């Protein structure tokens, strides 16, 4: 053990430059993997908290007849208890807070009363200051982070129907039902304030026949599963007036789906990075063995066994991997709270469970150390049969002596070029490893560059992948009958630059036992639904079904499915399969006529507009025209093109931001890996350069020779990596999003981006080669030979 430790220390001293780079690369990989594990754990965190808070198994919401709903709940044998709460949905409000002084328009806002109720008991206060002055309001974490408010801030809420209310934020709480991007910007107000709002609700109901108060009911099951149809029947009581239902899995999806996507991205990048790293480790070990074979021979001669020598090398790299992984975990634990506070909470609406999770650490160590041990074991096979005499006398060279490529006496050409080519052809084993490592670097760079393009330059297809149909503008209007709608559509069509005008509505339904969103349009041909097979539904008995839903149902194009909406059931022919991350791939597209067959009202309160040549300014111009031509009928317009590209567009921007971080991280790691490869090559050939320098080659000549000898391999690997990155971006994205119902991703894959990425790798390698070989200039020939 003592001898082994001495060997490890001696090796580490000798390889300290390489080990420092490995440490950095593995630290970054460990950091990324650990953050991916933390981020992917939010589902478990949610489940644990839900149990602790005794969260309802499902909620119903709508306007119910009190007796009828209570009777129905009691009659439903599978529900053993329930609680009932009231909420006020004021419609569109403008919220002004210190960070949004001009006010932010919010459609899905909800007031709850701060009182001792079963629902309020499920809320977990993170921060609270009941001593705050003025009218107090408590906001959920999602609302607080999205609006950028803290306890003590002022908050003004303007509503067309309820007037203006000014509050002081007195607390922030975690709400595991209504505190995520899929639900409401929900707040708690004091009983007196709620009473005021309730009074206004009563007046509006009496005077304008408008209903803003809703019932919100939490149900607990007795252990038996309730089918979607049974839930839907309860949720749609009172003719389904604003009614619906959601089970715990649905709430949870609202909290964790964005972070799960982020985790998938991070894990994919981290795995590629680990792959690059282990390849580089293999390369380094093989190089080191070649370089140090005489030392190894000497150690064998004095009695060390090959097993001891291999163990020493394996232990050296494993210890580095161990230290680096722990460092990565440490850094992630230290920095994650910042990322969480500024960014992740905005997506999850939940707090992270702070502290180290033993299972994460063990999993990470097992993965990283397992990979490193395996690769070091395989790479050190070379010395398994090392004879001390052979090693001491002849060494173990990776150069091929079977053929003398480009003999100088017979080959015409520039001396530097010829020597570089000779080195290149002679070192086949080295070339293979450099090629593979650079291939991975080039692949990950190209993949990252394509993602960068899709999330930062042209987000259209990425939006489609996440959201499905994404128009350039929304035009809201009054008037619902067909004649009026046709007139509005025609007027909008007449505006120059408008390409498509269509309505798209949605509701919930189910097929067999699978809940699904039913989307319907009055112009299906214009809807982008992520169709990847077949054709769009054009007739009223046709449907396009999400690929993942079709898989679950065991149906495909040409089959018939029975779609249920409440008590209604109708059969439809599947004409196509679609995909989109939203809704977890559980979607059905129908024509508006097809929706009406099921009893869905299929009315539209706004039209979606697409332009020929969209830009934020062009959309503004069209919307201004729309206001003019529709006059009072136009109640609201929205430049969705601008919104898509703004930071308000969660979660697309969330994914974009993380992708940007990953792209930057990939570039750093690519730089480190390239640096390490070049350093390895240089170290291995240091003596050769020393000899050549002694003979009279200048440092510049040697640097050119080094760069040229790698150029062919680097160029070939960069080209192939670029081609692979180009062709595998969509398949890889499909794999990442497979669990979200994506069967065939169709992001922009830009040839120019691939070429730029590949060129960047080549240029970067040339630059690093130049700097890595600075030693050639700084150090004398004598010292180079002596190294």
């Amino acid at each position, binding site marked *: 053990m003592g001898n082994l430790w001495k060997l490890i220390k001696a090796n580490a001293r000798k390889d300290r430059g390489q080990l420092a780079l490995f440490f950095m690369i593995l630290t970054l990989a460990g950091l990324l993997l650990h953050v991916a594990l933390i981020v992917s754990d939010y589902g478990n965190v949610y489940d644990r908290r839900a149990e602790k808070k005794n969260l309802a198994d499902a909620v119903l919401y709508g306007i119910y007849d009190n007796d009828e709903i209570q009777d129905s709940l009691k009659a439903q044998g599978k529900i053993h208890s329930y609680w009932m709460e009231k909420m006020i949905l004021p419609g569109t409000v403008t919220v002004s807070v210190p960070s949004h002084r001009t006010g932010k328009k919010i459609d899905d806002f909800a007031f709850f009363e701060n009182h001792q109720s079963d629902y309020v008991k499920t809320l977990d206060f993170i921060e609270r200051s009941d001593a705050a002055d003025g009218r107090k309001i408590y906001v959920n974490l999602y609302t607080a982070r999205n609006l950028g408010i803290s306890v003590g801030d002022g908050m003004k809420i303007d509503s067309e129907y309820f007037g203006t209310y000014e509050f002081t934020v007195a607390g922030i709480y975690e709400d595991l039902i209504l505190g995520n991007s899929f639900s409401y910007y929900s707040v708690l107000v004091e009983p007196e304030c709620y009473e005021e709002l309730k009074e206004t609700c009563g007046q509006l109901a009496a005077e304008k026949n408008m209903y803003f108060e809703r019932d919100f009911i939490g149900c607990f099951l007795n252990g038996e599963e309730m089918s979607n149809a049974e839930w839907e029947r309860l949720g749609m009581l009172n003719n389904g007036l604003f009614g619906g239902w959601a089970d715990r899995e649905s709430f949870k999806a609202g909290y964790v789906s964005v972070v799960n996507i982020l985790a998938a991205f991070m894990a994919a990048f981290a795995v590629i990075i680990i792959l690059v790293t282990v390849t580089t480790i293999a390369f380094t070990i093989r190089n080191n063995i070649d370089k140090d074979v005489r030392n190894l021979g000497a150690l064998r001669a004095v009695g060390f066994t090959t097993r001891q020598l291999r163990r020493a090398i394996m232990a050296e790299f494993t210890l580095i991997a161990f230290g680096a992984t722990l460092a990565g975990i440490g850094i992630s634990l230290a920095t994650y709270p910042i990322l969480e506070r500024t960014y992740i909470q905005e997506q999850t609406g939940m707090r992270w469970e702070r502290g180290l999770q033993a299972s994460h650490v063990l999993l990470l160590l097992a993965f990283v150390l397992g990979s490193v041990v395996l690769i070091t074991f395989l790479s050190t096979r070379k010395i398994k049969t090392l004879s001390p005499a052979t090693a001491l006398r002849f060494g173990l060279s990776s150069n091929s002596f079977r053929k003398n490529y480009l003999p100088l006496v017979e080959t015409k050409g520039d001396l530097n070029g010829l020597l570089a080519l000779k080195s290149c052809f002679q070192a086949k084993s080295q070339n293979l490893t450099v090629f593979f490592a650079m291939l991975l670097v080039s692949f990950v760079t190209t993949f990252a560059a394509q993602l960068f393009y899709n999330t930062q330059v042209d987000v259209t297809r990425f939006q489609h992948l996440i959201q499905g149909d994404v128009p350039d503008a929304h035009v809201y209007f009054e008037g619902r009958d067909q004649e009026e709608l046709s007139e509005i559509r025609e007027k909008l069509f007449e505006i120059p630059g408008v390409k498509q005008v269509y309505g798209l509505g949605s509701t919930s339904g189910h097929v067999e036992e699978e809940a699904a969103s039913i989307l319907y349009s009055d112009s299906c041909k214009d809807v982008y639904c992520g169709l990847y097979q077949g054709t769009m539904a054009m007739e009223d008995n046709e449907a396009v079904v999400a690929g993942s839903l079709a898989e679950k149902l065991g149906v495909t194009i040409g089959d018939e499915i029975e779609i249920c909406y409440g008590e209604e059931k109708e059969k439809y022919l599947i004409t196509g399969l679609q995909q989109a991350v939203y809704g977890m791939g559980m979607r059905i597209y129908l024509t508006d006529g097809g929706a009406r067959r099921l009893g869905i009202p299929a009315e539209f309160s706004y039209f979606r507009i697409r332009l020929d040549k969209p830009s934020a300014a062009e959309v503004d111009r069209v919307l201004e025209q729309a206001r003019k031509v529709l006059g009072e009928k136009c109640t609201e317009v929205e430049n969705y093109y601008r919104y898509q590209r703004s930071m308000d567009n969660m979660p697309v921007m969330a994914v974009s931001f993380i992708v940007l971080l990953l792209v930057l991280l990939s570039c750093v790691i690519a730089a480190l890996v390239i640096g390490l490869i070049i350093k390895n090559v240089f170290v291995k050939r240091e003596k050769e350069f020393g000899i050549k320098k002694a003979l009279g080659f200048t*440092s510049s000549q040697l640097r050119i020779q080094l760069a040229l000898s790698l150029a062919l391999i680097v160029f070939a690997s960069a080209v192939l990596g670029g081609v692979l990155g180009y062709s595998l971006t969509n398949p890889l994205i499909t794999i990442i999003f497979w669990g979200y119902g994506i069967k065939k991703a169709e992001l922009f894959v830009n040839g120019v981006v691939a070429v730029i990425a590949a060129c960047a790798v080549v240029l970067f390698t040339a630059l690093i080669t130049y700097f890595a070989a600075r030693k050639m200039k700084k150090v004398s020939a004598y010292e180079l*030979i002596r190294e």
Partner: protein
Amino acid sequence: MSEVVIKTEKLSKSFSIGGKQQHILKNLDLEIYKGDFTVIMGPSGAGKSTLLYALSGMDRASLGSIYYSGENITKYSDDKLAVFRRKHCGFVFQQIHLVENMSIMDNVISAGMLTGQKQKDLKDKAMALFEQVGIGEELTKKFPAQLSGGEAQRSAVVRALINDPDVIFADEPTGALNSAGVNAVLDVLTKVNQKGQSIVMVTHDVKSARRGNRILYISDGGIVGECHPGAYVSEDQNRHEVIRQFLEKQGW
């Protein structure tokens, strides 16, 4: 008096070893004459190799100056020193130091191409030199690792001679060879010297030292003794005795 090829003035060389400054050469004044076979001897760590590498421009002096044919080479840039070495110096090392991924012939030709000589001329010249050192054409196609130590060292001598350098620097050229190899290499160097080329050789070996016409004894970073046994013609007892007595006097 012969022409001075290399001259040093107060040459000093220090290394930092373990953070501690070690002074290897101290204010050393020395002249190397044209056509001489100068042998540098001394105990281990005396600074023999350090002096050789400093004189040849392979390493830089810490202080002092080195003049080559009257020109101060200590002021040369790195690239200018490289050009100086390729034109004026030939090297033979104890560890041979042939470039391993090049054939023996390519090792020699590449050194020749550096000075702008034509490949065809170089081939003829190299073959003639190989013949002189007893290396057949077949061996020239092999790689260094495929040769014996003696064959490889004789090939290294050919590489050192390919540019007709003014001075050949040899650092323990026979240190890693068997007795047959030692004689072959020494014979080649002697022959080259007899044709007028200057040789500066560091050695521990008295047998090798006998080939020199001037023996310098270095100790503690300075020249402490000098012996002139005359030009080498053949092994004779008298020459052996002169050198033995000189070395004994130095404490060898």
